[in-house]
């Protein structure tokens, strides 16, 4: 299976410009970047993709073994970069994909020129003096909430979506389709995301990094952003006025401005 199809890779902008790869987090798909990527398509090679199991990726490529840790998702990012022959990559990762970018940059530092971490958290569950913001019971509660919400997904609609990858409009007609996912894969991704501990991986990264921290972010509170900043050697921390966990949707201008300023300072 081609990486491009597996991860529904979509490109915009001049192919010889500096590549900027946008990675969506747990929950929705590459549409999360719809208000942000167009601002970079003039002077960057914009690369968007869906993690396996999300959006219009090929769920048949889902292998519980490979994706039993965030490392499997980081391998996918590296495979995308290799197959498109990207170098000096700016990787912009939202939520769990911030840590996926940390893992990828730790594994192949030469490939990455900059990391933008939007709402990163290396460990969601509180742990012996460490504050992640959640308990194990909270994560079980999330799995229950997911069980009650098969967004846009039922066994009758799934074949329509899955069997017609060449007709994306079929998926779009469904309500809540930007956040639809195969429920089994989504549960698996939720567990891997929220029960992982990638604190030790922060020390392996030397790539210049920008941490974007929102106010009142229930998923990645400020104390976690501060922790990432302390542990990530070459990082800047910027607090946004935006509230919540998705500044890429709720405050795209502020997000774009912050990323642009970071890229200008690095080059």
């Amino acid at each position, binding site marked *: 299976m081609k990486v491009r199809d597996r991860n529904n890779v979509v490109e915009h902008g001049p192919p010889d410009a500096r590549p900027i790869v946008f990675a969506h987090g747990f929950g929705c798909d590459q549409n999360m970047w719809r208000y942000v990527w167009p601002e970079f398509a003039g002077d960057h090679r914009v690369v968007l993709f869906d993690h396996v199991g999300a959006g219009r990726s090929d769920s048949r490529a889902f292998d519980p073994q490979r994706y039993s840790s965030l490392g499997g998702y980081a391998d996918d990012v590296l495979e995308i970069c290799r197959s498109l022959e990207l170098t000096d990559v700016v990787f912009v990762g939202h939520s769990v994909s911030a840590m996926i970018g940390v893992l990828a940059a730790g594994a192949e530092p030469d490939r990455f020129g900059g990391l933008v971490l939007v709402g990163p958290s290396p460990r969601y569950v509180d742990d012996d003096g460490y504050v992640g913001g959640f308990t194990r019971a909270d*994560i079980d509660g999330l799995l229950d909430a997911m069980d009650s919400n098969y967004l846009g997904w039922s066994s009758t609609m799934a074949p329509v979506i899955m069997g017609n990858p060449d007709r994306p409009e079929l998926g779009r007609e469904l309500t809540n389709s930007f956040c639809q996912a195969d429920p089994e894969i989504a549960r698996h991704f939720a567990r891997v995301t929220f029960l992982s501990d990638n604190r030790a991986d922060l020390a392996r990264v030397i790539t210049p990094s920008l941490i974007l921290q929102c106010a009142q972010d229930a998923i990645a509170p400020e104390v976690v952003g501060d922790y990432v900043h302390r542990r990530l050697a070459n990082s800047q921390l910027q607090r946004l006025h935006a509230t919540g966990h998705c500044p890429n949707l709720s405050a795209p201008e502020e997000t774009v401005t912050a990323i642009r300023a970071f890229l200008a300072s690095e080059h």
Partner: protein
Amino acid sequence: MSTDDGERLDDTAEELFEDAPCGYLATRIDGTIVRVNRTFESWTGLSRDALLAGIRFQDLLSPGGRIFHETHYAPLLLMQGSVQEVAFDIVGADGSLLPSLVNSVVRTGPSGSAHLIRTTVFDATDRRRYEQELLRSRRREQEIAQELQRSMLAGVLPRAPGLDIEVGYHAAERGLDIGGDWYDAFWLSDDHTAGLVVGDVVGRGIHAAAAMGQLRSAVRALASTGLGPADLLSALDGYAARHGVGWMTTLVYAELNLQSGRLRFACAGHPPPVIAAPGEKPQFAWDGRSLPLAAHMQAGRHRAEATRALTPGTTVLLYTDGLIERRDRPLDAGMTDLLGALADPGPDGEPLTSRLIRTLDGPAPDDDVCLLAARLGGSG
């Protein structure tokens, strides 16, 4: 307007809002509540003053629900301008949970930018209880079917100096329902002939698992009477029809005599066995074929069977269609790939069945795959 006994029928808009049979809220884009109706106050046990003191809607959710709100609900609302039928538990003043269904729409201002969210909250207590019961019973059925399948595929395979039997089972990745594929191998009463079976019951889940178990036992019982492959399938047709089980099941049944090297087989609508003799190209055995089980009930018609004389070192492979059939590969390509994979010796030490599953099936198969390889000992 009024009823016959003078009751007023014209609810004011204010009354409709305040006492609607659903909770009604208006919030800022960040979720901060700016307006709320009386129904919502009474359902949550929180006063209007408390609710309007800077609380965000997501603050009223259970922690798990709050994560779902941030990762699904809020982004969807900002992307598509509305969200429908999302289930949340709302935490009341006394800590009790109100299972609810929530709908929201974004109100845009004159400039087109989002500035307000209107949300309705419906009491879904009974509906949620019912859904949870359905989920529970579905999980239980899956567990039973898996246990049933495990117990039936866990038997001891025949072992002898002149015979190597390997089996493989690779469950489909999609869905939790088990399939009705099975393999089996056992000694016939002469103690030097092995009965070999691979079959595929139509359907999935507990019914398929139960049917598979019945047919598996029936094949063993019929084989012990010395019927031979074709007559065994005919008798199995009768069994299937009499007991209403396993209609359209496909299977291949073979008897391998270790002393003579003689292989007798009969194939009921099943993919053909592959015979791989040392130094020769592997080949499909296209003879000894007839229709699937119980699709073949015209009186007087007999099942076909075929015979091969195997040389030492020859492998007979029986398998289900999942091995060669995949959505992204035409059937004939899958069959060509199977012959190619059998001809290729592969890395040392890897069992044949694992290698075939790895090379042909990929990591996430659409269908279950079940296979059995029997190698006649001796040279080669």
